[in-house]
């Protein structure tokens, strides 16, 4: 780093150059790349292979199953200004969240206090400093060369336990940040390449399973140090000046490639999506008074692909933040956008911050996607992010379809979790999220069905993991882990098949579970499918306390192996329980003990295309695997044993559709009365009112579509108050795009 400029001045200069020229660091030409492309490629390959191989080594140092077995981590190299140069494989969410963390330190003048010195270690899981949520813990070190800060290396791991109120790593029921666990708020936690003792003691005293976090920290630090050492060799080989200039060119090249890919594979225009995750908490005993309510977070999402090949997301019209852990801030939204970009558009080798320069998000201040209350919880921001960005995948699918790249189309999947808390089979306090959800089934693709048991939106390398690992991790044994017959989203290509796990508590006298899902629970729908594909039929979870499980085992009886089987055995009295729940509401079980049961369904993503266009061969394959019953194959797909019979059944389905349907205008005329009176349930009515409170957009669209003068939804069901935005420090913010009503003077601008 030049002696004349400090880090903040370098960052300001970099941003000003981009603003002025539209090129990263003002690079109108890629001189090193053009001069010797092979040498340039060798340089990039050296960086990337170093980072990826270091990540593999880190697994052997880490402690938690999240890293060792389920790949929930990433490591990368950053410029002095905090821009991503190259990333390993893994949770790509954090390409830009690490960047925001580094910029947070620069903009809050960490250079002067607490100072940035060789050997320092900084850590963060704070959404105000660019993080997503408390379990995603970032570790960052500066790299110096002859006294100059020349790079940052950062790594993120997802911790299964983060000190939350309930126990698992992500809080489901906390009304604010004060229940979402241990915050490390962009802090210096180590010096001289070692974590400070006071920091390690803090982990020990504030976590239930501090060994996981501590050893994962050491794995991340080791990874950072290995890359730091490797950089010395790379700089020696290529030269320091080449390193500095080539890393900048890599980012500018990333930006150009991104724009080129958009222009080659997509179509400019405006795409629309709407998500409505339903949250219910009024049924939970002893909820915090601030959080004892049922509501929908309506998220309106417009994606614009501009003439220039840039992608912009605008969330105007969405409901506001509230007292729950599903809020998003700029950090989480950047994370969500990045997993989309890296998996769908930027996946061929050059994952860096170049793409960030060609995208923009407009996050209305105070909305669910940009909570501006200092105490807002983001512990389960993913319950908002997953439906939002899965829907962005869907919108991108429309674009690839229009351009003819149907092999690129993929729909994502809701995430469903079982969290466990209490005391484990070793007598220790425990809390963890069972990350087998990382093997969830995809949504449908443009050329095939969704993968049965694939990976979730948030980790393209996610894996379900071995059941035995989870049995060692917590006080529970698997009774079954299996696909669910007839549980998939139908379509010409179907969503991946749902699967479910059922556990029995083993070795503990005190344990409870939180069971929940993203957008698909509480009677909601994750989001719509594509071109006539349906959503999945719903989500289910289960717990049973005070069971006769041990007696069933003692008499060598058949034990349940799935939620539906347990439900049937409860109905016919073979399985007995003092109390139980089975259904779609997210749940916090009572205290369970040895012999009690719990289970969760992991339903796959949405379907693609009209189900009656599904090939008979695909249906027969599903029948042979037991993924569909003959009865449902007939109902959903018009399938019969012969081709001619199937054709006849499908003709009848089409005739029935025409008979049962009405012209849309006719429906509009009859439905208009209902729309005028706002004749909907309380939760929906309050949702529309909450959206209109923050923005006129939904209200205007509603009045225009239904040709009404008066908006019928006024009662939000929420306390009328204003919260204050944090002051006294820099934090990442989003550009704002004031809403302009169609037809108004400003609309033509």
């Amino acid at each position, binding site marked *: 780093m030049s002696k004349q400029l400090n880090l903040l001045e370098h960052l300001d200069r970099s941003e000003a150059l981009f603003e002025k020229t539209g090129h990263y660091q003002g690079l109108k030409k890629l001189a090193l790349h053009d001069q010797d492309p092979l040498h340039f490629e060798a340089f990039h390959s050296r960086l990337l292979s170093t980072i990826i191989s270091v990540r593999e080594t880190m697994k052997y140092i880490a402690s938690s199953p999240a890293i060792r077995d389920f790949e929930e981590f990433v490591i990368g190299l950053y410029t002095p200004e905090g821009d991503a140069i190259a990333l390993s494989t893994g949770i790509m969410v954090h390409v830009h969240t690490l960047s925001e963390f580094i910029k947070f330190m620069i903009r809050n003048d960490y250079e002067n206090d607490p100072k940035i010195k060789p050997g320092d270690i900084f850590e963060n899981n704070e959404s105000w400093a660019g993080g997503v949520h408390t379990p995603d813990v970032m570790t960052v070190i500066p790299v110096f060369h002859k006294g100059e800060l020349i790079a940052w290396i950062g790594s993120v791991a997802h911790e299964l336990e983060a000190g939350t109120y309930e126990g698992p790593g992500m809080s489901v029921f906390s009304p604010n940040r004060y229940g979402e666990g241990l915050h490390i708020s962009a802090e210096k936690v180590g010096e001289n390449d070692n974590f400070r003792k006071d920091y390690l003691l803090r982990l020990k005293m504030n976590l239930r399973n501090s060994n996981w976090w501590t050893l994962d920290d050491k794995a991340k630090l080791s990874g950072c140090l290995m890359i730091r050492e490797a950089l010395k060799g790379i700089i020696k080989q290529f030269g320091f000046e080449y390193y500095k200039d080539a890393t900048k060119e890599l980012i500018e090249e990333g930006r150009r490639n991104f724009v080129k890919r958009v222009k080659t594979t997509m179509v400019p*225009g405006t795409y629309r999506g709407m998500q*409505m995750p339903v949250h219910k908490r009024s049924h939970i005993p002893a909820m915090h008074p601030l959080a004892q309510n049922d509501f929908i977070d309506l998220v309106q999402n417009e994606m614009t692909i501009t*003439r220039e090949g840039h992608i912009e997301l605008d969330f105007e019209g969405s409901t506001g933040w509230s007292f729950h852990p599903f809020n998003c801030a700029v950090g989480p939204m950047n994370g969500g956008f990045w997993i989309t970009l890296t998996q769908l558009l930027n996946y061929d080798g050059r994952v860096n911050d170049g793409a960030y320069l060609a995208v923009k998000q407009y996050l209305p201040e105070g909305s669910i996607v940009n909570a501006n209350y200092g105490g807002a919880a983001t512990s389960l921001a993913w319950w908002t992010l997953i439906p939002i960005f899965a829907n962005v995948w869907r919108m991108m699918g429309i674009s690839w379809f229009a351009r003819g790249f149907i092999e690129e189309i993929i729909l994502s999947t809701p995430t469903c979790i079982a969290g466990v808390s209490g005391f484990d089979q070793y007598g220790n306090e425990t809390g963890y999220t069972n990350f087998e959800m990382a093997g969830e089934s995809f949504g449908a693709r443009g050329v095939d069905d969704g993968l049965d048991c694939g990976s979730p939106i948030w980790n393209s390398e996610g894996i379900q993991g071995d059941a035995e690992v989870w049995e060692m991790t917590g006080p529970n044994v698997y009774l079954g882990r299996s696909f*669910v017959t007839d549980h998939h989203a139908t379509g010409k290509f179907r969503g991946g098949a749902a699967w479910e796990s059922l556990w029995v508590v083993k070795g503990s006298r005190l344990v409870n579970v939180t069971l929940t899902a993203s957008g698909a629970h509480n009677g909601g729908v994750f*989001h719509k499918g594509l*071109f006539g594909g349906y959503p999945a039929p719903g989500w289910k979870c289960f717990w049973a306390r005070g069971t006769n499980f041990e007696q069933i085992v003692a008499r060598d009886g058949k034990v349940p192996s799935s939620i539906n089987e347990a439900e049937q055995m409860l109905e016919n009295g073979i399985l007995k329980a003092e109390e139980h729940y089975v259904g779609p509401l997210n749940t916090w079980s009572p205290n369970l003990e040895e012999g009690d049961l719990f289970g969760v369904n992991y339903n796959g993503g949405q379907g693609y295309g*009209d189900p009656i266009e599904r090939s008979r061969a695909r249906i027969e394959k599903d029948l042979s695997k037991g993924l569909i019953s003959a009865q449902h194959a007939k109902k959903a797909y018009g399938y019969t044993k012969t081709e001619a019979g199937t054709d006849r059944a499908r003709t009848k389905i089409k005739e029935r559709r025409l008979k049962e349907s009405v012209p*849309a205008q006719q429906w509009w005329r009859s439905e208009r009365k209902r729309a005028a009176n706002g004749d909907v349930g309380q939760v*929906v009515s309050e949702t529309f009112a909450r959206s209109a409170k923050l923005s006129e957009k939904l209200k205007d669209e509603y009045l225009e579509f239904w040709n009404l003068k008066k908006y019928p939804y006024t009662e939000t069901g929420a306390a009328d108050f204003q919260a204050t935005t944090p002051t006294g420090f820099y934090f990442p913010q989003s550009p704002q795009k004031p809403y302009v009503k169609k037809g108004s003077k400003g609309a033509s601008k």
Partner: protein
Amino acid sequence: MTTPEKDELEVIEGLLRHELAWPALFKLMRDPKSENRFDLMIAVVQKMVTWDDPILLPLGENLFIVNKKGKAIIKTRAGAELCAWTENWKMKCRVIIRKKLSDLKKVFPAEHLTIDPTLVELREWICPKSGMLLDVDCVPPTYPVEIDFSPDLKAFYEDWLKRKLPVKL
């Protein structure tokens, strides 16, 4: 517009008819994205429909923007001409609204169905000519009907494809 190579056309026809074997499909996924894909796709899809109006842009498996005597309109695969390309085509379709549990049970297996119709209703948009399903919306009751995609045809044709837009907008 250049004339597509025969073998390229065959591959894309196989892709769009879902007849490509996995190795060929995988190759297509991994290959650099070809700049003439749009033209190849249009050439194939034009053969797959029974009408002659030139396709300007596919909007879905069974829905297209076409050039109808110099004007851009939205037309279904079966040939129903719904509206001008800028209008809300869904409001020109037939529709089935599933807003009761009994309606939902007609398309979902009852034992797995947990969607709450007081919170979400399904709107099935149906081609008035063929009965094919064009789209399925999942929205809260009374939510306005919106279309998912409004293309910028002018920018697409003139700036990206570098050719004259064959219709007057």
